[in-house]
């Protein structure tokens, strides 16, 4: 499974989301590769991804995709990330 975390600049917030998504997947016992990128590159980076993780503010910038878009409000809340990923990958 491939998961992409995106942010506006491709550094900082997407890297935090990537790290905490990896922790959440570990909790769920799900094998997945998580990458971080910026919203401008999401078309290429997420072309074969199953899940895109992002902020509610960035959803409108993502464009057409076959991946499930999972919106995370609090990037530091592992319970929120775990619960939302469980639905997306389940």
């Amino acid at each position: 499974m491939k998961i992409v975390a995106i942010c506006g600049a491709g550094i900082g917030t997407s890297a935090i989301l990537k790290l905490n998504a990896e922790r959440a997947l570990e909790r769920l016992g799900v094998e997945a590769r998580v990458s971080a990128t910026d919203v401008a590159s999401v078309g290429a980076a997420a072309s074969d991804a199953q899940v895109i993780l992002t902020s509610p503010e960035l959803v409108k910038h993502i464009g057409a995709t076959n991946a499930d878009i999972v919106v995370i409000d609090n990037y530091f809340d592992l319970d929120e990330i775990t619960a939302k990923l469980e639905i997306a990958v389940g």
Partner: protein
Amino acid sequence: MLPPLPESAIRLGAAATDWQDAVRLCGAALRDSGATTDAYTERMISVIEEFGAYVVIAPGFALAHARPGSDVMTDGLAVVTLAEPVRFGHPHNDPVSVIIGLAVTTTDEHVGAVATLANVFNDGAVIPALAAASDDETVRELLGYTS
């Protein structure tokens, strides 16, 4: 793994009229610490103007940043807390009273700093404690700097 956090990079209980003002305070703190020039501050604002308030990644907390560039002299971190929180326009996490400014020289180098920040802030008590901090030492302790 966090960049140094000198006194010049910490502004506690600052006054900001809006989010641009708050990000400028953060940019000024990064500049005064020697990490960036004012051009970086304007780029941090541009990112939010272009992509919205996605930098508000937790309730009350914004991570202001932009890509590496010639306006970044060295990796830097700044901490700004506001006496009165301001709205960035995030649907769930407004208003913001704690802003961390991050500047990195290369995208590779930021990963260690970001991992440290994630470890610190995964403790949900840290943001309100930072918002209430009244001295630099408390801020450094909360962020895991050892003196």
